[in-house]
C-alpha cells in the first residue's frame, strides 16, 4: 500500500508575488549596471510585531565591510501591505504593481543616483590605490 501524502501541491517560491523577489531582481540589475562596482544585498531581520523587515544595502568589494542602507521594507507574512522607508519618507502600498512603481521612483531618484555614484567613485579611487600598491 503506497504511503499516504495529504499535502497539496505548492507553488514554486518564485511564482508567489513577493516583494522580496523584486528586490532581488533589482540587486542583480544594479550589479550589471555598475559592472560589479556596486552590489546590493538584502539584510533580513524580525520586527517585534511578527512582521518581516528587510534592509536593502549597497556595498562594493573594494570598500571592505562598508554598506549603505538605501531603504528598508517591512511586510506581514502575507506580504502586503508593504511599507518602504527611504530617507525620511515611509510609503505603504497594497499590491505588487504599486510596490513596483514605488520602488522604481526610489531607485530612479536623484538621491539614489548620488549615493551609487559616490560609492562608485570611492570604490574606484580605493581600487586604484590598491592596484598601485
Amino acid at each position, binding site marked *: 500500500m503506497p504511503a499516504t501524502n495529504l499535502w497539496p501541491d505548492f507553488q514554486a517560491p518564485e511564482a508567489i508575488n513577493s516583494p522580496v523577489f523584486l528586490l532581488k531582481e533589482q540587486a542583480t540589475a544594479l550589479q550589471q549596471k555598475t559592472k560589479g562596482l556596486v552590489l546590493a544585498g538584502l*539584510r533580513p*531581520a*524580525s*520586527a*517585534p510585531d511578527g512582521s518581516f*523587515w528587510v*534592509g536593502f544595502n549597497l556595498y562594493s568589494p573594494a*570598500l*571592505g*565591510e*562598508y*554598506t*549603505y*542602507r*538605501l531603504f*528598508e521594507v*517591512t511586510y506581514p507574512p502575507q506580504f502586503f501591505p508593504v*511599507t518602504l*522607508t527611504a*530617507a*525620511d*519618507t*515611509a510609503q505603504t502600498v497594497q499590491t505588487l504593481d504599486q510596490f513596483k512603481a514605488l520602488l522604481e521612483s526610489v531607485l530612479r531618484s536623484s*538621491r539614489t543616483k*548620488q*549615493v551609487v555614484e*559616490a*560609492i562608485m567613485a*570611492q570604490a574606484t579611487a580605493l581600487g586604484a590605490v590598491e592596484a598601485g600598491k
Partner: protein
Amino acid sequence: MATFLFWNLCGRPLEPVLRRLTARHGIDVLMLAECAIPEGAMLNSLNAGGPGTFRRLPPVASQRLDLYSRFDRLCFGPVLKEADHYIIRSLTPPGGIEIVLVMAHLASPIRRDLRARHSRCIGFAQAIRDAEQAAGNDRTVVVGDLNVNPFDDAMLDVRGLNALADSRTVLRKDPRRFGRLQVEEFRLFYNPMWSHFGDAVQPAGTYYYDKSNPEVDPLWNIYDQVLLRPGLLDRFRSKNLKILTTDGLHSLTRSDGTPNGDGFSDHLPIWFQLDLRRRVRHASNESLA
C-alpha cells in the same frame, strides 16, 4: 580623556557659538546634525579659536551628519555602515583604545509616527551589531538626535536599541537572553540620559515642544542621547556628561529654561568625555591580584 560634542544645529549659522563651545570645552570630536554651514566657513571658525587643528571627516555618501575632529585623520577608520540617518566608523584616539563611533539623526516625529520610528530603530540597531562584528569590537558609543525618548519602546525593545537607565543592571543583565530551546541574545546599551530628565539639574531635557498639544505629552524630551556598551562603562563617569545651556558668552536657553530656537537651535548640545587611554597592566599588580 577624549571629549565629544553633539549638536543638532537646526540649520542655523552657529559657527561663532561652535567656536566658543569647542574652545571652552576642549572638544576633540564635534558631531553635528542639520548643519548647513559650509566646510570652509566651519573650519575657519573652529581653527580660529582653540588649540589643535580641526578637520572634517567626510562620509562616503551620507548627507545629514557632519564630523569634525582635532584628532588626526588616521585615528578614524573607514566608514563601516552608513545610511542617510547614521554613520558608523571606528575611532582610535592618540594613545587610546579603538571604539566604534555611531553618529545618528533618526527620522523626525514631524515626518514619522512613533511606530514607524520604532521600526527604523530595529534596522539601526542591526546596523550597529553588523558594524561591531565587522570591527571585531563592541566598545561602542552611539551619539545623536535619535528622535525618540529614552522611555519609548524603540529604546527599550531588545530588537531596538535595548538601552537601560542603570549601569549596574546593564553590566549584570548583558546580554539579555530569551527562549529555552532556541536562545536569542541581545546586547544592552547603558543610557545615561535618563539621569537628565526633570528639574533636579537644569535643563529638563534637550528639546522642548508644546505646539502639537496631544493629551499625553512630556513636552520636554531627550531626543539627543549618548548610549554606551558595557565595555565602555568603566571609562565613563556620570559627571562627564552634560546638556549645555551656554557657550560662555550667550545663554542657549530662554528665561523659562527652554532652548532658544530663535537665536540658536531648538535642541541643546550634549558634551561628554570618555577615558579612552590605553591602560597598562603591570605584572607585579596582576600577581598581587
